[in-house]
């Protein structure tokens, strides 16, 4: 039963008024001395009991009449019954139905014997078939498409229905609930029909569904327009949904066969919440580089693994399984693997030799493990992780050579020693990292060359030694240094007094490995002294990367032009710290150099919306998008060549940048990772569902029969008003008749 105006039920207690009045009157008793008791006694004995029951009957009739009157206002209707088991409620006349159909990849998931989209289209078909004239049905994709598929002269033929359904299903795209609801509101605003219904069919995975702040105004407007909203979620229990969200290393540029720690970010959604997740990482040629099975609960997870990649471009593909919604369980990333690292060490001509010269420590730390120079100090070589890495890489290369694979060479480090007079833009152009050691000042030309190198994208590490004059240093390097130096922290060294270092930002992927024990464990070296810095001298675009436990900066970075300048305040020799003999020292230097290398390259692995910047010597390039579209982009000339910039990276996936527009040959691969927050492949959790239902003022149905029942409740069966009116009239007539007959 449906009550059209249940608010009037508040008046129902008034139906008890006759009973109350009757009881009140019966309570009032008076005493009378009656002279005609002879007659009263006669009548009392014969008629009193009969009349009492008759009075009860009259009171009941009055009560029922009042109750019937109240219910007439309440307007009850019998429950609507569907004419057939799977029939959809036929629309009453002048009904305008708008259907928002989710056409995102989530609708390709298995649903019964078909997919979710099959089930949704079947329901849409029933909606069209149940349409009645006058009326209208508008079918809109829930995604970004502004297409609309409408039928006005209802019902429409089956061919036309299939045409409309196919048209809508062919407009795929991620769900955009807010945009779709606004479109529906505009349609209803112009609608001439009095009865309005909105149906939302989909996976309900988009984050906007759970964000009441976004959708609340839309639903409020729909309610104001008198629109009834129904929602059906296609979600199957046991659906397994994995999403590969990101794959990153310390950067996009790696060194050949250097063990690099890769971090995979993945999302586990669906039921059950704990399941075996198989991760496979393949490289070029689908060679499996890594494979592991994890037991993961629901939510976003990060998994780390180590790979050593050969020189060249390596495209890694991560696949997750098992997955019922496989559209997002694959992610690709391209890494540029360099065969060598070139470090330029700029140092004045000095008389320091051996281990008094910090350059010695650098050489030792960065030398190839198999070089003659490294072999001179076995103990030092053994404790450096870089040496260990080289040894492992050499071992791996030798093993592959035995297997007949093409031998791969680990990266090598070239150290170019320069004096200031040799510093020029050209001489520095090959260097991935320039280290200025123990220099408080440089000649003007050399400094200018150094500065231009930085502006053009180079990275410089300034490492003044213990003998440097802070003031002279500041005068020379003030335009590029992240901080200005002050006097050393300690006048004399005390072996019992030292600090430790720590990273300012543990979330920075560059530092997360260096702080870990397997990485470099930068926290263990001891720092006995360091240059202090002038308070407030941190440049506006500078930041502190490493600090000491006395809160003094140890390593700071400043962006200058397209490059970076790093400042190390403790000297690179062994005078002020034990870092030089620590296993993390070469790791840190190589990592700094690696980062410097990467900054000179354009990013290949992008966040959503980040621009693709690629060299285009031909003056233009063709972009093949992940959605299959292609665009030709004109290059802009630059001092060192022509580059294209492409900003439309809204769709996650692989973008193929082809500089040879004529040939059908793949070019440079760029990858845009999906936005985890924008993924609509996971459905609303219980909390999100409750928030959505409250915002929309509706019940989110999980099955089609439940939706039919919801709609049916909205419709009404036969009204009870005529029966109530007849009962009221009969009751009143009976009451009047009895009262007049027996009590008048």
């Amino acid at each position, binding site marked *: 039963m449906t009550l059209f105006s249940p608010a009037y039920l508040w008046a129902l207690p008034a139906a008890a008024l006759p009973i109350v009045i009757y009881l009140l*009157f019966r309570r009032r*008793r008076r005493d009378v001395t009656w*002279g*005609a008791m002879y007659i009263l006694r006669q*009548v*009392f004995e014969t008629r009193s009991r009969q009349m009492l029951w008759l*009075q009860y009957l009259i009171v009941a009739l009055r009560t029922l009449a009042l109750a019937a009157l109240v219910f007439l206002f309440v307007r009850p209707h019998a429950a609507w019954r569907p004419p057939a088991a799977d029939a959809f409620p036929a629309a009453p006349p002048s009904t305008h139905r708008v259907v928002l159909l989710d056409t995102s990849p989530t609708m390709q998931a298995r649903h019964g014997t078909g997919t979710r989209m099959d089930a949704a289209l079947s329901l849409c078909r029933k909606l069209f078939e149940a349409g009645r004239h006058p009326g209208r049905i508008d079918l809109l994709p829930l995604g970004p498409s502004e297409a609309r598929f409408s039928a006005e002269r209802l019902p429409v033929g089956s061919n036309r229905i299939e045409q409309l359904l196919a048209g809508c299903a062919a407009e795929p795209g991620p769900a955009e609930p807010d945009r779709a609801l606004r479109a529906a509101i505009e349609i209803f605003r112009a609608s001439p029909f009095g009865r309005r219904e909105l149906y939302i069919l989909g996976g309900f995975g988009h984050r906007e569904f759970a964000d009441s702040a976004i959708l609340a105004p839309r639903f409020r407007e729909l309610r104001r327009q008198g629109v009834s909203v129904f929602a059906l979620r296609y979600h199957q229990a046991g659906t397994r949904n994995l999403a590969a969200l990101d794959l990153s290393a310390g950067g996009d540029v790696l060194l050949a066969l250097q063990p690099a720690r890769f971090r995979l970010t993945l999302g586990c959604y669906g039921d059950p919440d704990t399941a075996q997740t198989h991760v496979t990482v393949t490289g070029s040629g689908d060679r499996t580089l890594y494979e592991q099975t994890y037991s993961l609960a629901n939510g976003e997870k990060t998994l780390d693994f180590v790979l050593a990649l050969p020189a060249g471009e390596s495209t890694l593909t991560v696949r997750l399984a098992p997955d019922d919604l496989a559209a997002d369980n694959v992610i690709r990333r391209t890494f540029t693997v360099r065969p060598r690292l070139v470090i330029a060490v700029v140092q004045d001509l000095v008389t320091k030799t051996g281990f008094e010269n910090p350059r010695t420590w650098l050489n030792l730390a960065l030398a190839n493990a198999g070089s003659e120079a490294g072999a001179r100090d076995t103990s030092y070589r053994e404790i450096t992780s870089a040496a260990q890495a080289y040894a492992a890489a050499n071992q791996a290369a030798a093993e592959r050579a035995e297997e007949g694979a093409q031998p791969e060479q680990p990266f090598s480090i070239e150290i170019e020693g320069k004096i200031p007079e040799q510093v020029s833009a050209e001489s520095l152009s090959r260097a991935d990292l320039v280290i200025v050691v123990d220099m408080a000042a440089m000649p003007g030309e050399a400094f200018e060359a150094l500065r231009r190198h930085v502006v053009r994208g180079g990275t410089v590490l300034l490492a003044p030694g213990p003998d440097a004059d802070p003031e002279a240093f500041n005068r020379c390097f003030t335009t590029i240094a992240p901080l200005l130096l002050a006097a050393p922290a300690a006048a004399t060294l005390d072996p019992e007094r030292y600090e430790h270092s720590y990273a300012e930002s543990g979330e920075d992927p560059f530092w997360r490995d260096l702080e870990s024990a397997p990485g470099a464990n930068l926290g263990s070296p001891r720092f006995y002294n360091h240059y202090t810095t002038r308070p407030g001298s941190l440049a506006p675009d500078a930041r502190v990367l490493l600090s000491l436990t006395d809160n003094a900066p140890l390593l700071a970075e400043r962006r200058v032009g397209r490059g970076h300048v790093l400042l190390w305040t403790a000297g690179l020799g062994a005078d002020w710290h034990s870092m030089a003999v620590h296993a993390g020292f070469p790791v840190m230097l190589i990592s700094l150099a690696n980062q410097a290398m990467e900054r000179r390259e354009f990013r290949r692995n992008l966040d959503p919306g980040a621009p693709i910047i690629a060299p285009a010597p031909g003056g233009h390039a063709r972009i093949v998008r992940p959605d299959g579209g292609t665009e030709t982009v004109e290059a802009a000339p630059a001092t060192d060549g022509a580059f294209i910039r492409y900003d439309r990276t809204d769709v996650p996936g692989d973008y193929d940048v082809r500089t040879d527009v004529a040939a059908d040959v793949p070019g440079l691969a760029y990858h845009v990772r999906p936005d985890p927050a924008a993924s609509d492949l996971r459905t609303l959790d219980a909390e999100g569902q409750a928030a959505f239902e409250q915002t929309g003022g509706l019940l989110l149905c999980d099955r089609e029969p439940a939706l039919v029942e919801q709609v049916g409740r909205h419709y009404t069966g036969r009204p009870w008003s005529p029966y109530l009116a007849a009962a009221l009239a009969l009751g009143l007539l009976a009451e009047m008749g009895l009262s007049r007959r*027996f009590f008048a």
Partner: protein
Amino acid sequence: MVEDSPHGFSSLLSGELADRVRRLELFSRFRVEGLLSGTGKSPFKGFTADFLQHRQYFPGDPLKHLDWRVYGKSERLFIREYEELTNTRLTVVLDVSGSMSHTGASWSKHEFAIRAAAIVTYLAMAQRDSFSLALFREGRAGHVPFGGGRQHLRRVFAALLDTPPRDGTDFSRGLAEATSTVRHRGLTMVFSDFMDDPEAVVRRLAQLRYRGHDVIAAQVHDPSEQELDFNSVTRFHDPEGPTVLVVDPQLIQRQYRLAFETHLAALKGACHRHGFEFIALPVGDAFEVPVFTYLQRRLERFTR
């Protein structure tokens, strides 16, 4: 009960009762004069006694009967002689049982009945009829023998006023004892509510009729008794006993009124069948009915 006293009436009455008697007397007089003023007859002139002839005055004749007009014309003394009608002997029988204490909007039935009885006896006194009073309940409750004149009237009034209604009613015994002293034929007016089986009551009254009395049954009832106009549950107390009925009058009002009318009709029918008059006296201000009924029946007796 006030017995006839050879020493005079007034000396036996208390001050209050004497006041009430005087008030009743005045009431009766005004009512009677008022009722009869329209007819042009004066109760004090004995309008039913017509002039017969003149005869010579003999010493010892009452001087009040001297016709002074004739003496003026003839200087001879003559006595006026009237046609002497046979005096009616009026017996007023009054029910003083508890049921007569029912009070409606104005007077109680008892108060109304004694006023009606007082008026009738006053009229009888004015007509030079002799009158007596008999009171009954379950038996005889009081008696004032036949007599005439104002003093006797006062005695009757005192008896009326000094006998409150109480106890139950036994029409058979009460009426029999009350009328046992009525030996001479006359007019008997019975004032009662007759709340008993009509046939039984009327059979008792018929016995008087059979003894040659002219019986008028005056049924005194309060209009409220007939209506039972209560709109809430009521405890009805029987004034003649301990019975209490708790009744919702709404339930039986219609039937009760019907029963009351039936009772009155039954009484009337029974009276007519037994050859005497029945008059219904609803308590109110309409005393003309008993008065004119009395006068009419008296006239009928004289013209028979």
